[in-house]
């Protein structure tokens, strides 16, 4: 990209941000939460696993802004550290689903014929399971570790990515530059990765921003059911699960992590909606 087109690109981004204020705010909030998660070791006031039984279920105080949980652990620190796990699992699983689903979709659309039918009917079958139940089963089978949660959540999101990648591939395949690539003797793999992929990347990324919220929600739900990363590791869903039994005495145990989840969900939904509207030509001039 030349310097001139780079400035033009930045100006375009700036204009877009102004026109889509809600999406912009969502993006900034999501980014801030991501930063807080990355900087958890420096940001969290206490060790998230440090217990102080004297402070068991203590309310908010100057030293502990959001109070303490059933083991006397600092809730704020656990929320900051919990975000690390929840966001990491969300981002990693959607990244994985995006790569596998995207490649399968491109392959199906590009090769066509029997390969296409086989891949797409497999995807249809995967869509026949409710994603939470599928995630539940995969984690139960593989065991609740961070890696397995990533695999389980990615597994539930592969089919939508394959579908979204296939349709534009079919359209791109018909264009002249693909024909030209073939005439030059490029391999199918090269054409798919170098020439088809960049042309459908927009749609895949928009879907990713929307599915990131779903992935984070699935992780929280699995943790709430008891299939999350094992305790004492802090996760938002796990904190709600732990606090659920004692929520009558200390509603904060449940409410604060819930608010953390809600903020990131709303932020990501705003961002995803804005991105989708911005890339949808029908809505672009709204």
């Amino acid at each position: 990209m030349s310097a001139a087109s780079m400035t033009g690109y930045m100006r375009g981004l700036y204009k877009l941000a102004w026109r889509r204020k809600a999406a912009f705010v969502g993006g900034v909030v999501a980014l801030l939460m991501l930063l807080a998660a990355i900087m958890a070791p420096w940001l969290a006031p206490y060790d998230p696993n440090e217990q102080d039984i004297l402070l068991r279920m203590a309310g908010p105080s100057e030293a502990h802004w959001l109070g303490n949980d059933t083991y006397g652990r600092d809730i704020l620190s656990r929320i900051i550290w919990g975000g690390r796990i929840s966001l990491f699992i969300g981002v990693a699983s959607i990244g994985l689903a995006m790569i596998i689903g995207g490649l399968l979709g491109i392959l199906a659309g590009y090769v066509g014929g029997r390969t296409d039918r086989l891949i797409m009917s497999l995807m249809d079958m995967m869509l026949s399971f409710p994603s939470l139940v599928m995630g539940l089963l995969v984690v139960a089978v593989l065991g609740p570790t961070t890696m397995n949660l990533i695999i389980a959540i990615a597994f539930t999101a592969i089919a939508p990515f394959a579908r979204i990648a296939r349709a534009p591939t079919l359209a791109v395949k018909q264009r002249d530059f693909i024909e030209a690539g073939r005439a030059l003797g490029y391999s199918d793999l090269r054409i798919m990765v170098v020439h088809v992929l960049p042309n459908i990347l927009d749609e895949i990324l928009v879907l990713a921003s929307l599915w990131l919220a779903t992935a984070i929600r699935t992780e929280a739900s699995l943790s709430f059911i008891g299939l999350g990363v094992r305790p004492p590791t802090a996760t938002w869903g796990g904190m709600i699960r732990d606090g659920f039994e004692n929520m009558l005495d200390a509603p904060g145990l449940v409410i604060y992590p819930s608010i953390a989840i809600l903020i990131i969900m709303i932020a990501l939904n705003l961002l995803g909606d804005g991105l989708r509207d911005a890339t949808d030509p029908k809505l672009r001039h709204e």
Partner: protein
Amino acid sequence: MLLFTLKRLLVAVPTLLGVLTIVFFVVRVAPGDPAIVILGENATQQAIEQLRSQLGLDRPLLEQYFSFIGSVLQGDLGRSMISNQPVLKEVWRVLPYTFELTAAALVIGIALGLPLGVISARYRNTPVDFSIRFFSLLGLSFPAFISAILLLLAFSIELPWFPVISEASYSDPVQRFRALVLPALNLGLIMVAYITRVTRSSMLTVISEDYIRTARAKGVPASMVIWQHTLRNALIPIVTVIGLYLGVLIGNSVLTEIVFNRPGLGKLIVIALNSRDYTTLQAMLVIYAFFIVLANLLTDLLYGVIDPKVRNQ
């Protein structure tokens, strides 16, 4: 219409077979010998061998697979590894609870979501539209277990209007209804958010069509243009989304049943998970997948009812 229905039925068969295959192999990958899970770590080798042969686990995988498919086709989903009861018996016992919950949620979702979406599109870019969109965004952002907990805190604890534990007496219809209200609202309001949103965007697409302008130009009353001409044509994407979100609805019903401590498929599957009852798990997945395939089929058939063009393809 009959031919259309038959064709759709035929398409569903390979999907179901594929689903059964996936379920069978996913459950077989599970670590830990089910015989050891049932008998405990200290069981003798002989007892384990005996149970393995009883459960058919010592047979070749392919043979197990075909016998599994065969029995499912005959409506036999096996026995629970823990209670040794037929799984279907347990499922039939709790199915009405899950069914009434999801049905009530669907009714709430459609009854509120459709009109809200239409109003939002009709008054596009006005404060009415913005507030409806804000609430639907909020609904989409709530994980079902969090909204369930908040409803429980608000309307069972702060305001003691509804029972805290839904597992009240289910033989009394009044109590049963009272126990249903909060869980159904929880699932239903999330559904409202989904339906409102798709109704709005689908209405907006149709509103800009030429035939709507024609209807207006002909002097058809505004409300008739919106509710009859536009909504009718906007229905296909709405029905699609309702069909697709059935999967989400089922997932959310699991969480709702846990929070409200309601009997149902969701609680059954969690109990089976905790006790590593693989036959029950396998059966539950088959049942869930069956419902989703059935829902897709119904959605397809509804297309035919809504849109004569689909029917005559």
